[in-house]
């Protein structure tokens, strides 16, 4: 057992941290966030040049086939910078393609994600919001060899800037909810597709998508018709684990801001950091940041090692992140008081990010329920728990 980074990982980290420090200061984050699309093409190009878009894609499909821990190191740095980008959407979508076994047919697509930063958007949640298979209602019906898609997706990340959409749809209502779930590759500009960016106190690019009689050929199906659920879950586990490290980085950063502020802000003649109440806000936040970080790294390690109980650790990491990152932001707001509520200061960006990511890929309630199920808490003790 040894929880230190390898030399190569330390290099990756240093490169990422330095790049983000010089290229993505808080002013740029604010500027991108306030831009109409919440997206900077230029920054995305820079990330492609850093070869981050290929890390989760095997070499045979044009990527660099890094370990999940490697990617976690990058995500932790991205989170510290509160860096906006569609990277997570590309991870989710490329993993769906890989896990459905459709990689060979979509080699060019994977390669263009890796090499040119082609953006796919993962279209999952609907008006009845949730991340269980039963929340998939958007219908895809066979019609003359094509499929016709009808329904609404809400809170879809990066749909407004994506080149193509990966739409999770229901091709059958028979059997259990996991059954009959299929994935379609749909052009964002296809006839019948309308994308509207949400108006909200949200930091991700989240959009509502209306699909109205959208017709796609059978070749648009990614993987097996009706059998995509397992691949979606595996893809989500990987994306969720790296997302948790992004949130760990964010949580750590808001506490570093709090530590710096409480050393320099003088009240009653002393730095406010000398007050135990201020210290306790910091300690609570640092505990959250560490909790997310180490549970997320363990999850990544289990994914890298192919451990069968990796899903338990992934859900634990995201549960810790969904509780801890928003909470760390609240602690930091307590320390900063009025100053922290000023947009220019930079803290508000993280709070917004924390509260948006809290729900994305499942909140703490979802992931704790999933853990209860994976640990078989509802089963009599003859069978042993999987975790």
């Amino acid at each position, binding site marked *: 057992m040894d929880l230190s980074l390898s030399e190569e990982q330390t290099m990756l980290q240093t490169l990422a941290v330095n790049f983000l420090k010089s290229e993505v200061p808080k002013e740029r984050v604010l500027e991108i966030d306030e831009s109409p699309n919440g997206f900077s093409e230029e920054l995305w190009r820079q990330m492609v040049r850093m070869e981050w878009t290929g890390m989760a894609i095997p070499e045979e499909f044009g990527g660099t086939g890094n370990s999940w821990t490697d990617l976690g190191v990058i995500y932790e740095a991205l989170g510290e910078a509160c860096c906006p980008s569609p990277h997570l959407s590309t991870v989710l979508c490329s993993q769906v393609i890989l896990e459905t076994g459709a990689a060979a047919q979509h080699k060019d697509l994977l390669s263009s994600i890796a090499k040119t930063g082609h953006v796919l958007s993962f279209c999952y949640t609907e008006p009845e919001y949730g991340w269980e298979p039963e929340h998939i209602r958007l219908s895809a019906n066979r019609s003359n060899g094509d499929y016709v898609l009808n329904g609404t997706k809400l*809170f879809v990340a990066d749909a407004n800037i994506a080149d193509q959409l990966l739409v999770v749809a229901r091709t059958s209502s028979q059997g259990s909810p996991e059954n009959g779930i299929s994935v379609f590759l749909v052009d964002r500009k296809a006839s019948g597709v309308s994308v509207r960016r949400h108006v909200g106190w949200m930091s991700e690019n989240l959009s509502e998508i209306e699909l109205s009689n959208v017709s796609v050929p059978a070749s648009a199906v990614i993987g097996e018709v009706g059998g995509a659920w397992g691949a979606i879950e595996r893809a989500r586990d990987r994306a969720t684990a790296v997302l948790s490290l992004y949130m760990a980085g964010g949580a750590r950063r808001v506490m570093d801001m709090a530590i710096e502020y409480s050393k320099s802000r003088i*009240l009653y003649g002393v730095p406010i950091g000398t007050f135990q109440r201020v210290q306790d806000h910091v300690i609570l936040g640092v505990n959250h940041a560490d909790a997310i970080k180490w549970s997320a790294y363990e999850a990544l390690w289990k994914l890298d090692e192919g451990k069968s109980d990796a899903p338990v650790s992934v859900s634990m990491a995201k549960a810790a992140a969904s509780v801890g990152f928003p909470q760390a932001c609240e602690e930091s707001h*307590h320390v900063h008081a*009025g100053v922290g*509520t000023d947009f220019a200061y930079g803290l*508000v960006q993280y709070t917004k990010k924390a509260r948006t990511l809290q*729900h994305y890929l499942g909140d703490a309630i979802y992931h704790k329920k999933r853990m209860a199920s994976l640990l078989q808490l509802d089963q009599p003790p003859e069978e042993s728990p999987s975790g």
Partner: protein
Amino acid sequence: MDFEYRPNYTPELEDFRKEVRTWMEGNIPPEIKAPVDSEDMPDDLYEFGVQLRIKLAEKKNWLYPSYSKQYGGGGLTPQHGAIIWEELRRRNPPTIFSNDLILPSILVWGTEEQKQKFLPGIFSGKIICFQNFTEPQGGSDLANIKCRAVRDGDDWIINGEKTFVSGGGPGRADLLFGPMMTDPEAPRHHNLGYFLVPAKTPGVTLIPLNLLNGRNQHTVIMDNVRVPHDHLIGDDHQGWQVAQTVLEAEHGGRGQSAPFNESANDFYHFVRSTQTNGNVLGKDPLVQERVVDFYIESHLNALLGMRNYSMYNNKQEMSYEGSQTVVLRKETSVRNADRVRDVMGPYALLKHGDPRAPFQGKPEIQQRNSLVALHPGGTLEVQKVIIARRLGLSRTQERAAPTPATAAGITA
């Protein structure tokens, strides 16, 4: 004990309610509604609100209903006040923020001449007041005041900067009230004077801040502002003591008689009207736990507010109770925002411009406001310092500052 906060109104009070309702219907067109987010107040609505204040005061004496008639208050009972407030909320016109914390400072510390001079204008609704207190270097250390007031004949000359001054915006303030440094040689807490600064005086500039909850807080720059001596409330070394009276009121010292429950009602409605997997969301035990916790904490704040109100009305001296309710209200507000996100998911983050936003985006406003509300009137940390003192734990022991209830026989 009597916990009735919605009394079985007497016939006289029921008649009064009818009168109020009729008047409101006659004077507030149904299409005139307060914006969901107070930040979005257009000028014409603002102007309507200003005129409504004046009309309420001039025509009916309903603007400050439960203050003594002596200087222009309504002289009515708290029940009358509650009815006016309920009917106003029912009709929901734009209301204009004027900080009535100015009243205790004048009522307790003002001379008879000052009461005659200032109170009628305030009670008339024509004078809009903002509290002019916090300074950039001071923050929670409220007594750390650098704004300098220097005597110059019959006037004072004031220079300095205040921040986080709440109100409707530049041009929408008449009186700015707060402490200024009068004597740099005097010890802390005995070096301040409490001034009413006319906002529309040369040298006063209000600059809106761009904050999480909008642009309703300001930096106030005072550059050689000349203020007449009769605008000093209390003597020129009593500013901190005057401020304490205001803070005592701000810190929940007066209590409140009726629980405020709009967001709770929205929350119940949401879980009962939202379907998930063919069931009402409120069937989910985890949702129930969060909604009930929301209910319990909100109702508890109401109960403790009632306790304070009851103590105030019985002229009992407060100990830690005022600050306790402030702390709990602020903490509850953040926890309840967390619960709303747990239950509503990302819907809680949709602004009122999004057609999918529940309750016209009010939950989203609450998400931001609960964070912003942490610091005004003293951070939680400072409020807890006060509680600890009042419980006898600190090196500093202290009693509550005088309020209109404990200081004198003034009905308030």
